[in-house]
């Protein structure tokens, strides 16, 4: 049997590493929906309530961060051409640390428990430090970084800033140190998380993935070379202006102006992506493309609603615009993009690992299912429609929480439940075929 484990292009981690991130994530999504069903409209009346903070972090840490971290461990060797050092150890440590850290944080928020918050600071801090160091070493080892690698580096730096501020806030809340300007730093924390880590990673990965998988023209050269760096610089400038505005109010206007210029950059990226997809040579519309269209279209829509609302405050006095923006960024942009990606990556990895083994064993008696046999379209498309209904209800619930918070929560629970169930079916099928290969191997040896 050919030993492929130590070859320099074969640096992907064992399949159990990404799978455990991907299978845990929908459970956190489900937990977030359950929390909204339990507490109801009060969660949506203030973004500073403990319940709202708990719900937000169940989604951002439990779903978004787990999927993104797991996917990046898996894809870095392919997208950047570098392995993550000690990837098995990193995966074995980071997955449980982030999972229990997220639970600890949520329990800490809900019970107001200082002990749980302290526990969360330690677990999340350790998990993210290990993750950022390992991925950082890999990314900075690339000698001639392409725009995707640059985008990932910028995203990782933004993750570092997000985590650092998050840990500072949680420490202050838990009684370690003092909590200075919590509202100010919470805004900085979430802007770096969403417009930094999530958006820059999306942009960097899209530069490579959209033209290749959908057979479209390339993104324009200036956009690939300039956008990720400029946006990170923009985030730094915005932060400086926004924080100094606490002392000197005159910079508040300039921080707002800086944010608007950055939003133009994100909108330009989204519009370019839609235009490229319009020109795509590959005409198949699959479930991943449906999810991606929602996620990309939601970028300009949510920014424009927010900016227009800010400019005409009299019309929008009844709506919490910031809450609406946050909900549309998380539920309208980040979740569908990752949800769509999962429907490609999980069946592909299942097929790839099994077919690789089959060829190495020269065992052609076992039939390896193709990607669509691992993950048929119909149940994935059903989940897409439920997700879309959940998105519409969740956005509407920001405006009329009393009526719609619980119906939105039920739809979210169904959507995350179906996603988790669909992914679980793929993994069970993987294990089934895998054990068929094991049996074939032993019977070969016996014969």
């Amino acid at each position, binding site marked *: 049997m*050919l030993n*492929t484990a130590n*070859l*320099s*292009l*074969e640096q992907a981690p064992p399949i159990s590493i990404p799978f455990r991130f991907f299978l845990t994530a929908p459970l956190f999504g489900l937990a977030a929906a359950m929390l909204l069903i339990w507490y109801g409209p009060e969660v949506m009346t203030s973004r500073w309530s403990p319940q709202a903070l708990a719900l937000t972090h169940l989604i951002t840490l439990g779903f978004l961060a787990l999927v993104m971290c797991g996917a990046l461990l898996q894809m870095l*060797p*392919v*997208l*950047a*051409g570098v392995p993550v050092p000690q990837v098995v150890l990193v995966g074995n440590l980071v997955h449980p640390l982030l999972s229990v850290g997220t639970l600890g944080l949520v329990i800490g928020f809900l019970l107001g428990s200082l002990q749980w918050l302290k526990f969360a600071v330690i677990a999340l801090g350790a998990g993210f430090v290990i993750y950022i160091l390992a991925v950082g070493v890999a990314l900075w080892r690339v000698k*001639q970084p*392409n725009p995707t690698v640059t985008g990932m580096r910028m995203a990782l730096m933004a993750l570092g800033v997000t985590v650092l501020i998050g840990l500072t806030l949680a420490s202050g809340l838990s009684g370690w140190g003092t909590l200075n300007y919590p509202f100010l730093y919470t805004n900085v924390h979430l802007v770096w998380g969403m417009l930094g880590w999530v958006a820059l990673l999306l942009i960097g990965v899209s530069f*490579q993935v959209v033209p*290749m*998988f959908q*057979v479209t023209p390339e993104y324009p050269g200036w956009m690939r070379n300039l956008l990720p760096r400029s946006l990170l610089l923009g985030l730094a400038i915005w932060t400086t202006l926004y924080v100094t505005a606490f002392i000197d109010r005159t910079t508040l206007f300039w921080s707002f102006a800086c944010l608007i210029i950055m939003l133009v950059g994100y909108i330009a990226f989204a519009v370019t992506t839609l235009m490229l997809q319009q020109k*795509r*040579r*590959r*005409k*198949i519309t*699959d479930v991943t493309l449906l999810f991606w269209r929602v996620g990309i279209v939601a970028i300009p829509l949510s920014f424009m609603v927010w900016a227009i609302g800010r400019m005409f405050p009299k019309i929008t006095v009844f709506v919490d615009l910031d809450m609406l923006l946050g909900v549309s960024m998380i539920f309208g942009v980040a979740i569908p993009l990752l949800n769509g990606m999962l429907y*490609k990556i999980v069946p*592909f990895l299942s*097929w*790839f690992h099994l*077919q*690789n083994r089959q*060829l190495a064993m020269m065992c052609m008696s076992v039939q390896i299912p*193709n*990607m*669509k*046999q691992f993950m048929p379209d119909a149940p994935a498309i059903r989940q897409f429609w439920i997700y879309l209904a959940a998105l519409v209800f969740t956005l509407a619930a920001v405006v009329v929480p009393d009526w719609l918070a619980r119906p939105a929560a039920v739809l979210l629970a169904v959507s995350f439940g179906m996603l988790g169930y669909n992914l679980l079916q793929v993994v069970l099928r993987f294990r089934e075929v895998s054990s068929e290969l094991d049996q074939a191997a032993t019977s070969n040896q016996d014969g």
Partner: protein
Amino acid sequence: MASITDTMAGDHRRCDEIFADAEASISDSNWEAGSAQFKEFHEAMEHHFSMEEGVLFPTFEEASGMTMGPTQVMRMEHTQMRQLFSDMAQAVEKQDKDAYLGLSETLMMIMQQHNMKEEQMLYPMTDRTFGGGADEVLEKMNAV
């Protein structure tokens, strides 16, 4: 001076376009066009593989001394793709649309992740190893 990276990446894009055309025809149940386009795609891929397996990989292995390195993984993935080509050819034969589309989706994923590795790692490595000799290697590859 042409580089191996640019030339071979260009050939990847060419194959992708024929792939997309075949898939579009077959998903419209246009088997006449679809089977011709699939054949053209299959030939384009085999030609690309023979340029690599016949000239590029052995020349690189000789010049760099790396015989069990990245080229071996690339050959392994060629084998995986060849298996899919033969399954796809059967699906075209039987005019089985669902089977073809399931296989073409799978092929697209492995083909693109394979291309990324080649375009980002292997081809630049060959360009660096050959230096000024890249033109000569390209000439031999074009003769395949």
